[in-house]
């Protein structure tokens, strides 16, 4: 029977990851077999992965597809007001996946956007999946570029590719990945297309098999550059262990009131611990 020749996924076949069988090891069937959806798993994962993106791009759909959870998916902004956590195992690693509220920017301030911003800035996820709407790519790239200013460990999920196809939009994915300096994976999370490839990229970035170098926006003004580096140095002195001092310095120069407040009352350095340990504290209580 011809069916016997289909690439049936078999967990007991040890040679699927062998170098001689890369064709099979990287195919969708083999990868789907390597994913275990763990739902809400109390244990800490090996890696923390964040799901970020503009509102209404399919973040929660990606989250649910990977964790097997049924986090509420809806077509309106502000739906995910706090972050949701779930877990999955892919090959040898367990991941804690954090679904962040949708945000257009890391710079504007509304309550749920602050959650996303603080987690990305100070929670230090091992990998950040930025879900972008392929039909509104230009607007979505604003957030991608902002995230690339604070972390290189990014995988872009070019979502809603099915819808883009219906609108006659084609995207030069390789070119985009080259310009951004991070992997770009086309997906339609709704029907699961591209998720095996997404997992593959997430693993490679998380464990460092692929070293990414995100594009940095150049500070063209020499005076601004000088001001940023001076202030960043002082911040590093004042708050030892603080991540992304340059980013914080730039915000201070712009007069961001929430960052000013955090510096004034000394909570700035605590932000990172707060974001990362919040989950652990909940378990302990």
């Amino acid at each position, binding site marked *: 029977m011809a069916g016997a020749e289909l690439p049936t996924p078999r967990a007991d076949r040890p040679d699927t990851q062998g170098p001689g069988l890369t064709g099979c090891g990287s195919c969708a069937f083999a990868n789907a077999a390597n994913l275990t959806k763990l739902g809400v798993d109390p244990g800490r994962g090996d890696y923390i992965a964040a799901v970020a993106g503009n509102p209404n791009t399919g973040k929660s759909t990606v989250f649910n597809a990977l964790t097997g959870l049924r986090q509420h998916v809806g077509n309106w902004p502000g739906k995910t007001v706090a972050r949701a956590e779930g877990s999955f195992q892919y090959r040898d690693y367990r991941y804690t996946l954090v679904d962040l509220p949708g945000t257009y920017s890391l710079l504007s301030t509304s309550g749920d956007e602050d959650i996303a911003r603080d987690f990305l800035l100070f929670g230090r996820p091992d990998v950040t999946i930025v879900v972008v709407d392929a039909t509104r*790519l230009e607007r979505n790239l*604003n957030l991608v570029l902002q995230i690339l200013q604070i972390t290189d460990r990014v995988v872009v999920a070019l979502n809603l590719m099915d819808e883009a196809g219906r609108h006659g939009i084609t995207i030069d994915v390789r070119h985009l990945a080259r310009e951004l300096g991070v992997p770009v994976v086309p997906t339609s999370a709704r029907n699961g297309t591209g998720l095996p490839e997404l997992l593959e990229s997430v693993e490679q970035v998380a464990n460092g098999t692929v070293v990414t170098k995100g594009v940095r926006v150049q500070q063209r003004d020499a005076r601004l550059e000088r001001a940023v580096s001076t202030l960043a140095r002082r911040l590093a002195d004042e708050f030892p262990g603080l991540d992304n001092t340059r980013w914080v310095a730039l915000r201070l120069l712009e007069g961001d009131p929430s960052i000013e407040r955090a510096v004034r009352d000394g909570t700035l350095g605590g932000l990172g611990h707060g974001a990362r340990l919040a989950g652990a504290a909940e378990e302990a209580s």
Partner: protein
Amino acid sequence: MYGVSMATGAAGTLDQLGRGDRATVTALDVEGAQRRRLMDLGLVPGTEIRVDMTSPLGDPTAYLVRGSLVVLRRSQARCVHIELGEA
């Protein structure tokens, strides 16, 4: 500046456009969080913008910016300086 006939290249503010008009953003005359928000939504100098839909009284109005719809109140649209026609 107000009341001039909006020929190509004429300058004005976004609220002066009619349905189907195309323009290019030249400046944002607003500070703070509102300015940040408009820029996050893609309204930066050099951006092409088109009036897509208007409500019966013209307030609010939906604009097409970088492939997505942005709906602004008239008071917000007044802050966006434009030049008629595409860049």
